[in-house]
Protein backbone atom coordinates (compact mmCIF):
# COMPACT_ATOMS: atom_id res chain seq x y z
CA UNK A 1 0.00 0.00 0.00
CA UNK A 2 2.94 2.28 0.68
CA UNK A 3 4.26 1.74 -2.87
CA UNK A 4 0.95 2.92 -4.36
CA UNK A 5 1.43 6.30 -2.70
CA UNK A 6 4.93 6.56 -4.12
CA UNK A 7 4.01 5.63 -7.71
CA UNK A 8 1.10 8.05 -8.12
CA UNK A 9 3.23 11.24 -8.38
CA UNK A 10 5.85 9.42 -10.45
CA UNK A 11 3.20 8.34 -12.95
CA UNK A 12 1.93 11.89 -13.18
CA UNK A 13 5.41 13.27 -13.84
CA UNK A 14 6.09 10.66 -16.54
CA UNK A 15 2.76 11.36 -18.20
CA UNK A 16 3.54 15.08 -18.25
CA UNK A 17 6.95 14.45 -19.85
CA UNK A 18 5.43 12.17 -22.51
CA UNK A 19 2.74 14.72 -23.30
CA UNK A 20 5.29 17.52 -23.55
CA UNK A 21 7.45 15.46 -25.94
CA UNK A 22 4.47 14.70 -28.17
CA UNK A 23 3.14 18.27 -28.16
CA UNK A 24 6.44 20.13 -28.55
CA UNK A 25 7.27 19.12 -32.18
CA UNK A 26 3.74 20.04 -33.26
CA UNK A 27 4.07 23.48 -31.71
CA UNK A 28 7.46 24.07 -33.34
CA UNK A 29 6.15 23.01 -36.75
CA UNK A 30 3.44 25.67 -36.62
CA UNK A 31 5.89 28.51 -36.00
CA UNK A 32 6.71 30.32 -39.26
CA UNK A 33 9.37 32.98 -39.71
CA UNK A 34 9.10 35.63 -42.41
CA UNK A 35 12.29 37.03 -43.88
CA UNK A 36 12.38 40.72 -44.73
CA UNK A 37 14.92 41.85 -47.33
CA UNK A 38 17.09 44.94 -47.58
CA UNK A 39 15.67 45.85 -50.99
CA UNK A 40 12.66 45.15 -53.21
CA UNK A 41 13.99 42.08 -55.00
CA UNK A 42 14.83 38.45 -54.26
CA UNK A 43 18.45 39.34 -55.04
CA UNK A 44 18.71 41.44 -51.88
CA UNK A 45 19.61 39.53 -48.69
CA UNK A 46 17.26 38.88 -45.79
CA UNK A 47 18.26 41.36 -43.09
CA UNK A 48 15.93 40.19 -40.33
CA UNK A 49 13.18 37.70 -39.62
CA UNK A 50 9.96 38.02 -37.72
CA UNK A 51 7.54 35.38 -36.48
CA UNK A 52 4.29 35.18 -38.44
CA UNK A 53 2.22 36.40 -35.50
CA UNK A 54 4.19 39.64 -35.28
CA UNK A 55 2.26 42.77 -36.27
CA UNK A 56 3.72 44.24 -39.47
CA UNK A 57 2.70 47.56 -40.94
CA UNK A 58 3.28 48.51 -44.61
CA UNK A 59 5.31 51.70 -45.01
CA UNK A 60 5.57 52.01 -48.76
CA UNK A 61 4.98 49.91 -51.88
CA UNK A 62 7.29 49.67 -54.87
CA UNK A 63 5.84 47.53 -57.65
CA UNK A 64 5.02 44.15 -56.12
CA UNK A 65 7.10 44.73 -52.99
CA UNK A 66 6.12 46.27 -49.67
CA UNK A 67 8.41 47.82 -47.13
CA UNK A 68 7.09 46.47 -43.82
CA UNK A 69 7.96 47.47 -40.30
CA UNK A 70 7.40 45.95 -36.89
CA UNK A 71 8.10 49.42 -35.41
CA UNK A 72 11.70 48.42 -34.65
CA UNK A 73 13.15 47.34 -38.01
CA UNK A 74 11.99 47.60 -41.60
CA UNK A 75 12.47 45.37 -44.64
CA UNK A 76 10.92 44.43 -47.96
CA UNK A 77 8.36 41.66 -48.51
CA UNK A 78 6.76 40.51 -51.78
CA UNK A 79 2.96 40.79 -51.90
CA UNK A 80 2.74 37.05 -52.64
CA UNK A 81 4.15 36.46 -49.13
CA UNK A 82 1.57 38.64 -47.37
CA UNK A 83 -0.68 35.67 -46.55
CA UNK A 84 2.03 34.42 -44.20
CA UNK A 85 1.62 37.50 -41.98
CA UNK A 86 -1.13 36.18 -39.71
CA UNK A 87 -1.65 39.53 -38.01
CA UNK A 88 -2.70 41.20 -41.27
CA UNK A 89 -6.46 41.38 -41.89
CA UNK A 90 -7.58 39.66 -45.08
CA UNK A 91 -9.25 42.79 -46.50
CA UNK A 92 -6.08 44.84 -46.08
CA UNK A 93 -4.00 42.08 -47.63
CA UNK A 94 -6.22 41.94 -50.71
CA UNK A 95 -6.25 45.71 -51.02
CA UNK A 96 -2.43 45.72 -51.07
CA UNK A 97 -2.33 42.86 -53.58
CA UNK A 98 -4.81 44.63 -55.83
CA UNK A 99 -2.85 47.89 -55.60
CA UNK A 100 0.23 46.03 -56.84
CA UNK A 101 -1.44 44.79 -60.02
CA UNK A 102 -0.17 46.60 -63.12
CA UNK A 103 -2.67 48.44 -65.28
CA UNK A 104 -3.51 47.84 -68.93
CA UNK A 105 -2.16 51.15 -70.27
CA UNK A 106 1.32 50.96 -71.76
CA UNK A 107 3.88 53.66 -72.46
CA UNK A 108 6.12 52.84 -75.40
CA UNK A 109 9.54 54.06 -76.48
CA UNK A 110 11.17 52.96 -79.70
CA UNK A 111 14.38 53.38 -81.61
CA UNK A 112 13.56 53.27 -85.30
CA UNK A 113 15.40 53.16 -88.59
CA UNK A 114 16.02 56.40 -90.53
CA UNK A 115 17.60 57.70 -87.29
CA UNK A 116 14.19 58.36 -85.80
CA UNK A 117 12.72 57.66 -82.38
CA UNK A 118 9.16 57.42 -81.10
CA UNK A 119 7.09 57.83 -77.96
CA UNK A 120 3.63 56.27 -77.68
CA UNK A 121 0.74 55.26 -75.45
CA UNK A 122 -1.33 52.09 -75.83
CA UNK A 123 -4.61 51.42 -74.05
CA UNK A 124 -8.20 50.32 -74.38
CA UNK A 125 -10.65 52.75 -75.96
CA UNK A 126 -14.30 51.65 -76.20
CA UNK A 127 -13.23 48.03 -75.78
CA UNK A 128 -10.61 48.15 -78.52
CA UNK A 129 -6.84 48.29 -78.16
CA UNK A 130 -5.73 51.66 -79.47
CA UNK A 131 -2.44 53.52 -79.75
CA UNK A 132 -1.18 57.07 -80.07
CA UNK A 133 2.40 57.50 -81.25
CA UNK A 134 4.71 60.41 -82.05
CA UNK A 135 7.77 59.74 -84.18
CA UNK A 136 10.51 62.29 -84.74
CA UNK A 137 13.46 62.28 -87.10
CA UNK A 138 16.09 65.01 -86.61
CA UNK A 139 18.38 65.31 -89.64
CA UNK A 140 20.97 67.98 -89.00
CA UNK A 141 19.40 71.29 -90.09
CA UNK A 142 16.03 69.71 -90.95
CA UNK A 143 13.59 67.31 -89.34
CA UNK A 144 10.23 65.60 -89.76
CA UNK A 145 7.74 64.24 -87.28
CA UNK A 146 4.71 61.98 -87.53
CA UNK A 147 1.80 61.87 -85.08
CA UNK A 148 -0.50 58.89 -85.59
CA UNK A 149 -3.35 57.02 -83.91
CA UNK A 150 -4.89 53.66 -84.66
CA UNK A 151 -5.96 50.21 -83.52
CA UNK A 152 -3.90 47.22 -82.42
CA UNK A 153 -4.95 43.65 -83.24
CA UNK A 154 -3.42 40.69 -81.40
CA UNK A 155 -3.39 37.72 -83.76
CA UNK A 156 -1.16 35.09 -82.18
CA UNK A 157 0.45 34.07 -78.89
CA UNK A 158 3.11 31.45 -79.70
CA UNK A 159 4.20 31.36 -76.04
CA UNK A 160 2.87 32.59 -72.70
CA UNK A 161 5.11 35.62 -72.73
CA UNK A 162 5.31 36.23 -76.49
CA UNK A 163 2.61 37.66 -78.70
CA UNK A 164 2.34 38.82 -82.27
CA UNK A 165 0.20 41.82 -83.10
CA UNK A 166 -0.52 44.17 -85.94
CA UNK A 167 -1.68 47.74 -86.06
CA UNK A 168 -3.14 50.15 -88.55
CA UNK A 169 -3.49 53.90 -88.16
CA UNK A 170 -3.74 57.34 -89.63
CA UNK A 171 -1.49 60.27 -88.94
CA UNK A 172 -0.16 63.64 -89.94
CA UNK A 173 3.48 64.25 -90.84
CA UNK A 174 5.08 67.65 -90.38
CA UNK A 175 8.33 68.64 -92.08
CA UNK A 176 10.69 71.52 -91.50
CA UNK A 177 11.94 73.64 -94.41
CA UNK A 178 14.07 71.64 -96.79
CA UNK A 179 12.86 68.24 -95.66
CA UNK A 180 11.05 66.23 -98.35
CA UNK A 181 10.74 62.84 -96.69
CA UNK A 182 6.94 62.67 -96.96
CA UNK A 183 6.40 65.04 -99.89
CA UNK A 184 7.85 67.94 -101.85
CA UNK A 185 5.18 70.60 -101.77
CA UNK A 186 3.30 70.58 -98.51
CA UNK A 187 4.44 70.92 -94.94
CA UNK A 188 1.67 68.78 -93.45
CA UNK A 189 1.07 65.40 -95.09
CA UNK A 190 -1.60 62.83 -94.16
CA UNK A 191 -0.06 59.38 -93.72
CA UNK A 192 -1.55 55.88 -93.58
CA UNK A 193 0.51 53.57 -91.36
CA UNK A 194 0.60 49.86 -90.63
CA UNK A 195 2.93 47.56 -88.76
CA UNK A 196 3.53 44.19 -87.17
CA UNK A 197 5.08 43.67 -83.73
CA UNK A 198 6.70 40.79 -81.88
CA UNK A 199 6.35 41.50 -78.16
CA UNK A 200 8.10 39.66 -75.32
CA UNK A 201 6.65 40.31 -71.87
CA UNK A 202 9.95 39.93 -70.02
CA UNK A 203 8.52 41.08 -66.70
CA UNK A 204 5.25 41.81 -64.98
CA UNK A 205 5.44 45.46 -65.92
CA UNK A 206 7.87 45.44 -68.81
CA UNK A 207 7.82 44.40 -72.47
CA UNK A 208 10.45 44.42 -75.20
CA UNK A 209 9.70 44.02 -78.87
CA UNK A 210 10.61 44.50 -82.48
CA UNK A 211 8.43 46.22 -85.01
CA UNK A 212 8.28 46.38 -88.78
CA UNK A 213 6.17 49.14 -90.24
CA UNK A 214 5.33 51.05 -93.37
CA UNK A 215 3.94 54.54 -93.90
CA UNK A 216 2.28 55.74 -97.07
CA UNK A 217 1.85 59.46 -97.68
CA UNK A 218 -1.68 60.22 -98.83
CA UNK A 219 -0.70 62.92 -101.31
CA UNK A 220 -0.07 62.86 -105.06
CA UNK A 221 3.36 61.30 -104.64
CA UNK A 222 2.22 58.33 -102.50
CA UNK A 223 5.65 57.93 -100.90
CA UNK A 224 6.06 54.50 -99.29
CA UNK A 225 8.39 54.58 -96.29
CA UNK A 226 9.17 51.21 -94.67
CA UNK A 227 11.14 50.88 -91.44
CA UNK A 228 11.97 48.79 -88.41
CA UNK A 229 12.19 49.59 -84.74
CA UNK A 230 13.30 48.21 -81.40
CA UNK A 231 10.73 49.06 -78.75
CA UNK A 232 10.19 48.78 -75.03
CA UNK A 233 6.96 49.25 -73.10
CA UNK A 234 5.97 49.70 -69.51
CA UNK A 235 2.57 48.83 -68.01
CA UNK A 236 1.24 51.59 -65.79
Amino acid sequence: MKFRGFFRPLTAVLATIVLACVAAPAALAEQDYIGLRSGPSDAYPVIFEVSDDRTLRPLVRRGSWLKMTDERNAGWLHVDELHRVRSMPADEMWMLINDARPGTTRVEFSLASQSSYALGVLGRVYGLDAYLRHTRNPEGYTSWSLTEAGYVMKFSTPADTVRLQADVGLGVALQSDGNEYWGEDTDAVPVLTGGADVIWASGRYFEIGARGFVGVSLNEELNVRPGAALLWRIRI
Partner: protein
Amino acid sequence: MKTATGALLLVLSSAVAAESTSVYKPVVRGNGLKDLESSGTQHGMLGAAYANTLTTQNDVAAGLLLNARYFAGERWYLLGEFQYGEFNSEDLIKDDEVVIEAGEDALRYAFGAGYSILQGNASTSGQYAVPWSIAAELAVGEQTTGDTSGQYTSLGLSVQFHGPKIWTAIGTRQFKVADERLESLGTDRRMQWDISLGMWF
Protein backbone atom coordinates in the same frame (compact mmCIF):
# COMPACT_ATOMS: atom_id res chain seq x y z
CA MET B 1 -61.78 34.23 -19.49
CA LYS B 2 -62.37 34.62 -23.21
CA THR B 3 -62.18 38.36 -22.86
CA ALA B 4 -58.92 38.16 -20.98
CA THR B 5 -57.43 35.79 -23.55
CA GLY B 6 -58.50 38.04 -26.40
CA ALA B 7 -56.96 41.08 -24.73
CA LEU B 8 -53.72 39.19 -24.16
CA LEU B 9 -53.54 38.11 -27.82
CA LEU B 10 -54.17 41.67 -28.92
CA VAL B 11 -51.34 42.96 -26.75
CA LEU B 12 -48.96 40.25 -27.97
CA SER B 13 -49.77 40.83 -31.64
CA SER B 14 -49.17 44.56 -31.32
CA ALA B 15 -45.89 43.90 -29.56
CA VAL B 16 -44.76 41.52 -32.33
CA ALA B 17 -45.65 44.05 -35.00
CA ALA B 18 -43.68 46.76 -33.21
CA GLU B 19 -40.66 44.43 -32.94
CA SER B 20 -40.63 43.59 -36.67
CA THR B 21 -40.74 47.23 -37.77
CA SER B 22 -37.85 48.11 -35.48
CA VAL B 23 -35.68 45.24 -36.84
CA TYR B 24 -36.08 46.05 -40.53
CA LYS B 25 -33.78 49.01 -41.07
CA PRO B 26 -31.90 48.50 -44.36
CA VAL B 27 -28.51 50.23 -44.47
CA VAL B 28 -25.64 50.10 -46.95
CA ARG B 29 -22.98 47.83 -45.54
CA GLY B 30 -19.33 48.74 -46.24
CA ASN B 31 -16.47 46.28 -46.37
CA GLY B 32 -14.25 48.56 -44.32
CA LEU B 33 -11.68 49.09 -47.08
CA LYS B 34 -12.20 52.86 -47.03
CA ASP B 35 -11.15 52.92 -43.40
CA LEU B 36 -7.83 51.25 -44.13
CA GLU B 37 -4.79 53.44 -44.19
CA SER B 38 -3.27 53.36 -47.63
CA SER B 39 0.49 52.94 -47.70
CA GLY B 40 2.52 55.23 -49.90
CA THR B 41 3.80 54.18 -53.28
CA GLN B 42 7.31 54.65 -54.65
CA HIS B 43 6.94 55.08 -58.39
CA GLY B 44 10.52 55.92 -59.21
CA MET B 45 13.56 58.13 -58.72
CA LEU B 46 14.13 61.79 -59.55
CA GLY B 47 17.64 63.17 -59.63
CA ALA B 48 20.00 65.93 -60.66
CA ALA B 49 23.53 65.30 -61.82
CA TYR B 50 26.79 66.92 -62.74
CA ALA B 51 27.65 65.45 -66.13
CA ASN B 52 30.69 65.49 -68.39
CA THR B 53 30.93 64.68 -72.08
CA LEU B 54 34.23 63.49 -73.53
CA THR B 55 34.85 63.39 -77.28
CA THR B 56 38.04 63.02 -79.26
CA GLN B 57 38.16 66.44 -80.92
CA ASN B 58 36.59 68.57 -78.21
CA ASP B 59 37.32 69.73 -74.70
CA VAL B 60 35.56 68.14 -71.75
CA ALA B 61 32.06 69.61 -71.79
CA ALA B 62 30.31 69.88 -68.42
CA GLY B 63 26.57 70.12 -68.03
CA LEU B 64 23.57 69.74 -65.80
CA LEU B 65 21.66 66.49 -66.13
CA LEU B 66 18.15 65.90 -64.81
CA ASN B 67 17.02 62.30 -64.80
CA ALA B 68 13.97 60.27 -63.87
CA ARG B 69 13.56 56.54 -63.48
CA TYR B 70 10.15 54.87 -63.32
CA PHE B 71 10.05 51.36 -61.87
CA ALA B 72 8.74 48.61 -64.11
CA GLY B 73 9.14 45.56 -61.93
CA GLU B 74 11.95 44.36 -59.70
CA ARG B 75 14.78 44.96 -62.16
CA TRP B 76 13.47 46.94 -65.10
CA TYR B 77 12.85 50.66 -65.08
CA LEU B 78 12.08 53.35 -67.60
CA LEU B 79 14.61 56.12 -67.95
CA GLY B 80 14.20 59.76 -68.94
CA GLU B 81 17.07 62.25 -69.19
CA PHE B 82 17.43 65.95 -69.95
CA GLN B 83 20.89 67.48 -70.20
CA TYR B 84 21.97 71.03 -70.86
CA GLY B 85 25.43 72.52 -71.01
CA GLU B 86 28.05 74.24 -73.10
CA PHE B 87 29.19 72.10 -76.02
CA ASN B 88 32.54 73.73 -76.76
CA SER B 89 34.59 76.47 -75.15
CA GLU B 90 36.87 76.93 -78.18
CA ASP B 91 36.24 77.15 -81.94
CA LEU B 92 36.01 73.77 -83.63
CA ILE B 93 37.89 73.98 -86.92
CA LYS B 94 38.03 71.69 -89.93
CA ASP B 95 40.18 72.43 -93.01
CA ASP B 96 40.95 75.91 -91.63
CA GLU B 97 37.25 76.68 -91.44
CA VAL B 98 35.35 77.26 -88.22
CA VAL B 99 32.50 74.75 -88.20
CA ILE B 100 31.24 75.37 -84.66
CA GLU B 101 32.04 78.65 -82.95
CA ALA B 102 33.05 78.70 -79.32
CA GLY B 103 30.27 78.78 -76.74
CA GLU B 104 27.58 76.77 -78.51
CA ASP B 105 25.14 75.04 -76.21
CA ALA B 106 24.12 71.39 -76.33
CA LEU B 107 20.70 70.28 -75.22
CA ARG B 108 19.64 66.67 -75.25
CA TYR B 109 16.74 64.58 -74.06
CA ALA B 110 16.53 60.84 -74.14
CA PHE B 111 14.21 58.04 -73.05
CA GLY B 112 15.08 54.45 -72.46
CA ALA B 113 15.19 51.52 -70.14
CA GLY B 114 17.45 50.24 -67.43
CA TYR B 115 17.95 46.70 -66.20
CA SER B 116 19.48 46.00 -62.81
CA ILE B 117 22.14 43.37 -63.49
CA LEU B 118 23.53 43.08 -59.97
CA GLN B 119 21.90 43.91 -56.65
CA GLY B 120 23.33 43.67 -53.18
CA ASN B 121 23.83 45.13 -49.78
CA ALA B 122 26.60 47.46 -48.66
CA SER B 123 27.52 47.80 -45.02
CA THR B 124 30.62 48.96 -43.21
CA SER B 125 29.66 48.59 -39.57
CA GLY B 126 27.12 45.82 -39.93
CA GLN B 127 24.49 47.93 -38.22
CA TYR B 128 23.35 50.02 -41.18
CA ALA B 129 22.86 48.47 -44.60
CA VAL B 130 22.52 50.29 -47.93
CA PRO B 131 21.14 48.39 -50.91
CA TRP B 132 23.08 48.95 -54.12
CA SER B 133 22.40 48.13 -57.73
CA ILE B 134 24.41 48.08 -60.96
CA ALA B 135 22.16 48.64 -63.95
CA ALA B 136 22.65 48.66 -67.71
CA GLU B 137 20.87 51.55 -69.39
CA LEU B 138 19.88 52.04 -73.01
CA ALA B 139 18.53 55.42 -74.06
CA VAL B 140 17.44 57.04 -77.30
CA GLY B 141 16.51 60.64 -77.98
CA GLU B 142 17.72 63.80 -79.61
CA GLN B 143 20.60 66.21 -79.13
CA THR B 144 20.43 69.77 -80.42
CA THR B 145 23.83 71.40 -80.79
CA GLY B 146 23.55 75.01 -81.86
CA ASP B 147 21.61 75.00 -85.14
CA THR B 148 21.69 71.29 -85.88
CA SER B 149 20.22 68.25 -84.22
CA GLY B 150 20.44 64.49 -84.49
CA GLN B 151 19.26 61.24 -83.02
CA TYR B 152 21.03 60.41 -79.77
CA THR B 153 21.66 56.84 -78.59
CA SER B 154 23.57 55.65 -75.55
CA LEU B 155 24.43 52.46 -73.72
CA GLY B 156 25.95 52.56 -70.27
CA LEU B 157 26.15 51.45 -66.66
CA SER B 158 24.77 53.08 -63.55
CA VAL B 159 25.97 52.24 -60.04
CA GLN B 160 23.27 53.23 -57.56
CA PHE B 161 23.14 53.35 -53.77
CA HIS B 162 19.59 53.41 -52.38
CA GLY B 163 19.09 55.20 -49.07
CA PRO B 164 15.74 55.33 -47.30
CA LYS B 165 15.11 58.96 -48.28
CA ILE B 166 17.64 59.73 -51.01
CA TRP B 167 19.76 57.86 -53.51
CA THR B 168 23.03 58.55 -55.29
CA ALA B 169 24.49 57.13 -58.47
CA ILE B 170 27.52 57.23 -60.71
CA GLY B 171 26.83 56.65 -64.38
CA THR B 172 28.97 56.17 -67.46
CA ARG B 173 27.84 55.60 -71.02
CA GLN B 174 28.97 55.40 -74.60
CA PHE B 175 26.94 57.64 -76.86
CA LYS B 176 26.45 58.56 -80.50
CA VAL B 177 24.70 61.52 -82.12
CA ALA B 178 23.54 61.13 -85.72
CA ASP B 179 24.46 64.69 -86.68
CA GLU B 180 26.61 65.14 -89.78
CA ARG B 181 28.08 68.42 -88.56
CA LEU B 182 29.35 66.82 -85.35
CA GLU B 183 30.39 63.71 -87.24
CA SER B 184 32.61 65.75 -89.58
CA LEU B 185 34.44 67.10 -86.51
CA GLY B 186 34.70 63.81 -84.65
CA THR B 187 32.59 65.11 -81.79
CA ASP B 188 29.56 62.94 -82.39
CA ARG B 189 30.47 60.00 -80.13
CA ARG B 190 32.48 58.70 -77.23
CA MET B 191 31.76 58.82 -73.52
CA GLN B 192 29.74 60.61 -70.86
CA TRP B 193 29.82 60.25 -67.10
CA ASP B 194 27.75 61.77 -64.34
CA ILE B 195 27.30 61.78 -60.61
CA SER B 196 23.67 62.02 -59.46
CA LEU B 197 21.83 62.74 -56.26
CA GLY B 198 18.11 62.36 -55.97
CA MET B 199 14.99 61.37 -54.14
CA TRP B 200 12.16 58.89 -54.47
CA PHE B 201 8.77 59.90 -55.78
